[in-house]
């Protein structure tokens, strides 16, 4: 269950001075003898896109799943809107406003866009599905996010292109008063034009004031869309700073060796951290 201590502190609204929406401090996670995360610190401020980079096996997926509630950290603390929380399941995460879009998108091919977007949270009218209300709400969300290339909202998801599917998955995530959206390799299987679609969508999420974390191998995408970059190396957070502090070369070096020649920006700490 999530723990609520007292009235939440002022919600952050972007910028380095305000409290980040999500803070991880000292997160440890191991599976048997394998240490997947080691004393990981991470800040995810609202209204900013954080790119999470790291080589295979660095722990990106484990970290994402820990935030999403699928794993419990062995040590360390997660702070959401300034309060310490325990995220024990995906329901807890959803209740907080944390939504995750996994790499396989988790869409049912045989259902249409509306049905997928409302899967698990259908609206009822007199005990039966309220198809009309759901359709209106879904259409609304899609148009706010400017997902316009879909011909009909009643199209089965299987007939959409990769970029459209990704857009539907993202739209599904943000429909629910979400404050933080985690995207795992959103552009991995997409062509050039569709990648553009998705990156634009990510920017729109940010502009709406959400906190966004994007895991990506593709440094072009990361540098285009991220405001901050965090690099994991063998389970440790070796770099975390605004994107302007990095260039491609340094990110690669952090990913592959854990350090860059000379410069190694410390993981950023916000002012309210000492408590």
């Amino acid at each position, binding site marked *: 269950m999530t723990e609520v201590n007292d009235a939440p502190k002022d919600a952050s609204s972007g910028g380095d001075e305000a409290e980040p929406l999500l803070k991880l401090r000292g997160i440890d996670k191991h599976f048997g003898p394998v240490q997947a995360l080691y004393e990981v610190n991470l800040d995810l401020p609202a209204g900013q896109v954080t790119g999470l980079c790291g080589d295979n096996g660095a722990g990106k997926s484990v970290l994402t799943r820990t935030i999403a509630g699928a794993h419990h950290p062995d040590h360390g603390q997660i702070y959401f809107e300034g309060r310490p929380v325990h995220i024990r399941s995906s329901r807890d995460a959803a209740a907080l406003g944390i939504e995750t879009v996994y790499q396989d998108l*988790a869409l049912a091919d045989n259902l249409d866009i509306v*049905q997928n977007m409302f899967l*698990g949270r259908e609206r009822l009218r007199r005990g039966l*599905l309220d198809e009309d209300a759901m359709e209106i709400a879904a259409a609304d969300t899609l148009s706010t996010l400017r997902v316009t*290339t879909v011909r009909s909202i*009643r199209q089965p998801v299987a007939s959409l*292109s*990769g970029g459209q599917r990704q857009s539907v998955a993202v739209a599904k995530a943000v429909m629910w008063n979400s404050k933080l959206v985690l995207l795992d390799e959103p552009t991995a299987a997409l062509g*050039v034009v569709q990648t553009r679609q998705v990156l634009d969508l990510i920017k729109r999420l940010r502009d709406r004031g959400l906190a966004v974390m994007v895991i990506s191998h593709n440094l072009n995408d990361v540098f285009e869309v991220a405001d901050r970059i965090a690099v994991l190396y063998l389970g440790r957070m070796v770099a975390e700073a605004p994107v302007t502090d990095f260039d491609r070369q340094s990110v690669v070096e952090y990913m592959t060796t854990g350090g860059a020649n000379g410069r190694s920006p410390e993981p950023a700490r916000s002012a309210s951290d000492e408590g």
Partner: protein
Amino acid sequence: MSDVTSDSSQAPAGATDTTTVADLTAAHEAAADVPPELVAQSLGQYLRASWARVRGGNSGVLPVVLAIVVVAVSFQIANPKFLSAQNLVNLFEQSSIYMLLAIAEIFALLLGEIDLSVGLVMGLGSVVVAELVQPTGANWPWWAAIIVTLLACCAVGAIQGTLVARLRMPSFIVTLGGLLILEGVAIIVLGGGLVGIGNSQYRNELVLYNIFWGAFTPLVSWILLAVIVGATGTGLWMRDARKRRHGLETPPRSLTALKIVLMAVAGIALVVICNVNRAHVGTIEGVPYIIAIVLIVLGASTVLLQRTRFGRYVYAIGGNPEAARRAGVRLPTIRIWCFVISALISGIAGVLFASWQVSLTTNIIKAANSYVLLAVAAAVIGGTSLFGGRGKTIHGVLGGLVIGGIYNGLYLQGVSSQWIDVVVAVVLLAAATIDVLSRRGAPRQA
């Protein structure tokens, strides 16, 4: 809204990205795959869009309708009595069992599972209900016997469902073992002999007998038809009107009107055929009760699958169980309930079966084995996919009609039951082949 093909065609020259090629084909199929009633503005557009969809691989109920026509025509040629009113009512009556079993099977197939025990649940249900009303034995009132029978069938479904859902044992193994065990249990209940409900002196037996052999009077039949067509038609019309009011995509008025008219025509044809006196001696006329029973089951299961959360989750599990799980759907619960419902409907078929056969012997129980194939064949012919996530209950009804037609026609020709089994097996294989082939490249749809 911009056209769906525009972004795919803008791939830069020389792009070796395979996904763009896939997107191109997907886009073409998408054009074919949008439900035509949603994008058509007129009846003509609808027909054209439907045809495009058929050519794109998603043929819907077309194969079944074609099959019905083929069966009707070929058997009528072979035997002019085939389409006589008398024989047709016979056919409907027999098909009712296949239709119910097909609907039962659909609940399992939609999940991506299979229930091989539907025939024997029916068999067990039939002997239990027959034994319970025996005046020399339990002598229960007919309604108690039916309720207990159905409950027992639900219990069987729950057990099988639990083994499949919680232990994740393969459903074809669980229901295969279940089918043999049920056969043994049914034989035990029969006590090695015979049980009959044909003695009209006993009220309970008489009621059971009439379930299958009784009918509404012609006048009542007409009234019922009017009520049903009226209610369904009004419902459809009002639903469209509401959608239009909210500015949502709606099928063209002419299409809805056509659907209502078709339904009315079919209903009228049914009532007319049934109202013809089909007795050699005396009078037997009117729509049989079982047709109403089938319609009720059809209606309830359609509402359940299309308009409730439960039904939505069934399709979701069949389409992508992992996605359903992540969305918070409780997989074991839904799966167990589907097996319970499947067994329940098979139990209803069992009551009808007992009523139809009038007396049940061990041999008849053994023959119930082959019913499962008929059920699966009916569902698949009707358009339900063996792989889950696709299918509608109306398909089961239409498929059941096809199977019933084939059985009836072959029987009229004097073909022995072994050969009929062979034909059914071949038909099942053909239907399964079509199912598989039709899915190559065509996306699935609920």
